[in-house]
Every structure is written in structure tokens, then in C-alpha cells.
């Protein structure tokens, strides 16, 4: 009986398209209705040239666990271009699956087409995930707390991923990837080179300085919108790693369009005074209209709040 099931499974695989990634789908102009259409995974394992990766400092997403993969088509390579985003060739894809122990919720796919990046959300149901351009909400229990987990809609994907109106990857910047990972990608023929550079610290590495870890945390969790070309460009608050202007980084900066997000406080970061800093107030809130980031967070990241609080406490007034 069991054998029969195995056989049926084998026949299913055998009768489908040949294993491996469907390059025509990535480069084409349709939106694949099922995640399996791409062929990123074969029997639950990454297909050829689908390479797992991790980030030094990741985005907080309600304590969800994430699996990340880079796909680069055969015969092409990612071009290294400094510490910022890697330059992916047309036909590449970034695949990121979110879930909690025992439960896979969603997979987000970024595809690099000739016309630019396209971001698509897939929601898991059984053995496959379906395209849900309008996003959805899924009730889940996390650390004993009931939350409404939000799968972003396609526009929300872009809200975080846009720079000057075009979609860009956020995570795989060279400075936020380990040297060994980049070396592996070079060995696999997926990346042209991997010079040794200064890297973002791991946000939770107690051996790294607090300020650097907090800056890395803010870069990854806030900097995708809060930069000079991002969705929050009009705020004048820029939390990217490379931002040099202390006021733009929030220090002594008065709010512009915070509304009740100000929490009755005067500045984004009051040096030495976490309790008087709007930035921390908004990190500690889960209320829409107050909570930052605006998308993808229904819980407070207690450890992130503690880190940023320590950083602000250590700034000289």
C-alpha cells in the first residue's frame, strides 16, 4: 500500500515537467498561479542553482522562521558591486518562505525580469502554495500569543521593496551576507567575485558594539522605507547604514507626519533618553497608525526594542 503511494508519487513527478527551475516562467510575462510551477524545489529539496542563504541581521517578522534561496539561471552570474545590493542577472529569483515550527505559511518570490523585478506572494495550502496577489491574514499562535499574521499583498511587497519607484531586493546586500556564503556562490558559478569587505554585525551578537548592532538592526528593519529614495523619503528620517547626517538618522529630529505616532514626544531619538524617543515608542506599539514598520509586524520584537533602547541610552545628550 505504502509502496503504491510512493509509486503514485513517483509517477506524478515523472509525468510533470522535467525537474529543475522553469526559466521561461521567470523571464516570461505571466504570473504563475502555483509556487510549484517554478520548479524551485524537487521533492522538497532545492533544485540545481537554487542556493540557500542567511543574513547577518534579518528583518523581524513576528518571530517567523525564514528559509531563503537565491536562484541564478545557468550560464549567468550575479555581479558584485560593493557592499550594497548584489546585481542579479535577468532570470534570477529570490525565494523566501515564512512559517513557524510545524507550519509553513507563505513563500514570497522576487523574479528578475527584463522589465525589472516582480514580487509575488504565495500562500501555502497542503503541499503547494497558491498565488494570492491580494494578500491574506492567517490566525496563528506565536510564543503563546494569538496574532493575525499578515501575508502582504502585491502592492505591499513593493511598498517595502521600492527605490525611486522600482522594485529592488532588500536582504541580499553584500554587507549583510557572510564571506563564506559569498565564497560558496562564487564556487557554484553564481557570483562573479567576493572581495573581503566590512560587514553588518549580527544584531544579536553580544561581542559586537551596541551602536553598530543597533544601526544594523535599524538599517534592515527600517532602512528599506526610511531612505532617500524609499517609501518614507518624505519623512526626512533615514535609518540606513550609510546615512551620515545625525539629524536624518533621527537624533534630535522633530517629526513631520507622525500624527499620533509621535506618542506626545518631540523627537525621533532623544540621546540618552529612550523613554523620550518616538522611534522606540513606535517600535513598542502594535497599533496600526502608530506601529513601525507599518507592515508585517503584529508583535513587539522585545529583543530588538532592548537593543535600540540600549543604543539610545548610550548616545551622549
Amino acid at each position, binding site marked *: 500500500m505504502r509502496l503504491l503511494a510512493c509509486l503514485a508519487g513517483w509517477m506524478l513527478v515523472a509525468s510533470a515537467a522535467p525537474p529543475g527551475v522553469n526559466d521561461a516562467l521567470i523571464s516570461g510575462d505571466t504570473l504563475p498561479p502555483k509556487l510549484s510551477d517554478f520548479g524551485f524545489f524537487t521533492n522538497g529539496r532545492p533544485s540545481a542553482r537554487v542556493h540557500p542563504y542567511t543574513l547577518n541581521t534579518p528583518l523581524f517578522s513576528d518571530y517567523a522562521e525564514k528559509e531563503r534561496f537565491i536562484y541564478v539561471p545557468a550560464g549567468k552570474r550575479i555581479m558584485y558591486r560593493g557592499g550594497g545590493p548584489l546585481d542579479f542577472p535577468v532570470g534570477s529569483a529570490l525565494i523566501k518562505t515564512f512559517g513557524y515550527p510545524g507550519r509553513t505559511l507563505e513563500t514570497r518570490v522576487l523574479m528578475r525580469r527584463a522589465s525589472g523585478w516582480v514580487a509575488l506572494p504565495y500562500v501555502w495550502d497542503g503541499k503547494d502554495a497558491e498565488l494570492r496577489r491580494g494578500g491574506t491574514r492567517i490566525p496563528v499562535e506565536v510564543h503563546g500569543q494569538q496574532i493575525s499574521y499578515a501575508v502582504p499583498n502585491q*502592492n505591499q511587497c513593493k*511598498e517595502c521593496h521600492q527605490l525611486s519607484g522600482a522594485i529592488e531586493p532588500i536582504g541580499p546586500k553584500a554587507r549583510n551576507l557572510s564571506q563564506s556564503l559569498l565564497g560558496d556562490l562564487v564556487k557554484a558559478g553564481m557570483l562573479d567575485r567576493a572581495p573581503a569587505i566590512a560587514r553588518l554585525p549580527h544584531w544579536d551578537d553580544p561581542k559586537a558594539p551596541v551602536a553598530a548592532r543597533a544601526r544594523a538592526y535599524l538599517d534592515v528593519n527600517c532602512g528599506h522605507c526610511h531612505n532617500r529614495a524609499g517609501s518614507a523619503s518624505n519623512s526626512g528620517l533615514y535609518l540606513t547604514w550609510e546615512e551620515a547626517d545625525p539629524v*536624518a538618522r533621527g537624533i534630535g529630529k522633530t517629526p513631520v*507626519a*507622525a500624527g*499620533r505616532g509621535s506618542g506626545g514626544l518631540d523627537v525621533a531619538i532623544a540621546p540618552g533618553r529612550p523613554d523620550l524617543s518616538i522611534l522606540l515608542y513606535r517600535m513598542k506599539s502594535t497599533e*496600526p497608525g*502608530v506601529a513601525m514598520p507599518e*507592515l508585517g509586524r503584529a508583535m513587539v520584537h522585545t529583543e530588538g526594542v532592548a537593543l535600540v533602547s540600549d543604543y539610545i541610552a548610550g548616545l551622549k545628550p
Partner: protein
Amino acid sequence: MKALALALLATAAPLAAKTVTVAPGPDAQERLQAALIEVQPGDTVQIAAGRYELTDGLSLDVDKVTVKGAGPDATVLSFKNQQGAGEGLLVTSDDVVLRDFGVEDTRGDGIKSKGADRIVYHNVRVEWTGGPNEKNGAYGVYPVSSTDVLVDRVTVRGASDAGIYVGQSKNIIVRNSTAEFNVAGIEIENSHNADVYGNTARKNAGGILVFDLPNLPQMGGHAIRVFENQVVENDTPNFAPKGNIVASVPTGTGVMVMANADVFVFGNMFADNGNTNVMLIGYKRPFTDKSYNPLLRGVVVRDNKHGRAGFAPSFPGGSEIAAAMGGSLPPIFWDGTGTGVIVKDAVPALSLNLPSPEASVDQAKPAPANFPDGPVPPEPKPVVLPASMEAAIK
């Protein structure tokens, strides 16, 4: 004849343009959002009459789309149970027309459009139905970082910052709209070339504000005309959360101009603004941005009608000054800083004669203001928007 045919061809909608209708009912959130994602340029998303209980912010990122309801009270998008996003509706594409619907009780801003050039808001209502409350969202209608903005026949009530707020934009018309029970009725901030006319700003803390703030991508607000508006009874106590610049707007202020250049305020009807009808000041807070100018440069106030004003001064030191002046403040108030500040209205005006905008009221030498005589400088040219925008609401 041939020319006529060509003209008709040019103005006709693309053949493929279609209307997608969304009706109220279960899964309204996903159906409406899916329609706003799948819509094609040239199409209309028609939101049928009814009430829509939404749980998340909506967004539109497709150019040349019209989102149309059955009327501001007939098609109601309610965000009372909103669980995520910073606004009710976010538009990030160009040539979008939003018309004939209402948005209620968003947790953050009402409708925001960012980098959305040639955006039209027409016959739209944004309201916090519980009345003024500091827990209401900040802005009702919120176009920002855009070129060519038309806000026409819009009503906003209850915003904890500004009802109609246009920020860091260029070439703007706000007209024939009503802003009431907000902290600020209408605010033009860090913007270039704006006409604000034919509006009613009543029952706000401040009626119409023209501001410029430091540390922002677009500064140097200038060429703003505020004319033929009804700015009356702005007596709702300022309920803005502290920290926001509008929290410093004294309750009972009609028009307030701060740190802008070439601002013309004329032909307005002012009455029953307890602090003052017209307030002209520089930027008071400390700043380090070297490219920012905190001063007024060229402000002309002329031919306005002034009813009762100044009977309830609400800025620091205001009541003391009022007492010294016989009980009330004059209808026009100037901090005494800046250049080219000219008031032609035949009503009393007060100057604090401050040495600089950030100086404290202790340094004030309040006295009747003296303004230079002679001709006023040339007025900014009327704002002209692309014909397609006016055509969209014909």
C-alpha cells in the same frame, strides 16, 4: 472636419478601457484589493454603493486608473477594524482619479498619495466619526511628493493633524472643499505653487496653514495664493498629539503662514477666530539644516473681510498682551520677523517685534504693526493644471 475627428480620437478613452465593479459583502477586503492590483491603465474600479468593513489598508499602484464610488455618503469604506498599514488607501501611481466615495475611521492617515503625479481627489469624504480625538489619524487627504495635485469638493472631518494636507509637492489646487473639526483644516507644507480657494475651513483649531519645515527633501515653500475662502469659527481646542508641528498652532487661528516666500492672502472672509484671523511668523524651533530659511519673505495680505477675532488669545503670553491692548488681540498678528511682509487690510495688526523667530515671547515688544506703503510685489501666477485633470471631473 478631419481635425475634429482627430481631436475626438485623441480624447476618446482607449478601446480596451473597462470598468471593474466591486460590490459590498463578504471578503470585501480581498476583492477590493485584488481589483486595485489587477486593474489595467485606463480602467475604472467602480465601488458600488454600500458599506465596506475593511481590515487592512488598500493600495493602488497602477497608472491612469479611476476609483469611483456612488457618492461620498453612499459608498463608505470603513476602517474601524483596521489591523495593519499606515493609511486607509495609498496611491503610488500617476494620473489617478479618486472620486465619489467616503473613507471612515482609518487608524492612521485617510487617503495618502505619494509620488503620484496628476492625482485628482474629487467629491471624496474622509471622516473620523467619533469627532475630534487625538487618537484619530493624522491626515485626511494626504498628497505628498507629487507634481500636479487637484483637491476639489473634498470634505474632511476629525483629522488629528491636517484635514487636507499637501506636502513637498508642486503645482497644487485645493478648492471648493470643506475642512472642519480637524486640528488644521487645510495645510500646504514645503510646497511650491499652490492655489487654495473657495474652501470652507471652520471649527478647526487652525483654518488654513502655509508652513515650511527643515530637514526635508523639499523645502523653500513659495508662490502660494490663499483666496476667497471662508475661514470662520475655528474654535476646536487643538487636539494634536504633542511633538507634531501643528500641536503648536494656537486654537482659534484663521490663516497661519510660517517660513514661506511669496504668499498672498486675499479676498477671504474671516470671522470668529478667537486667537487671530491671520498669523504671520517665522519658524521657532531650533534647527541645524543650513539650507533651510526660517523666515517669511514676501507675504501680502489684502482685501480680506474681518469679522470678530482675537477674543480668546491662545498663544503663550497672548492673554497678557490682549489685556494690555484693551481685552482682545487684533485680527492680524505678526511676530515682526522676515522681509516684505505687507498687510493692506484696514484692520488693526499687532507685531511682537521679535528680534528673530526663535526668540521667546519675553523678548517681545508688542505694538501696532507698521507695514510699508506703496505697491505690492507681483502676485504668483495662477496655478494651471494639465487639462486632463480638469476633464476627469467634468
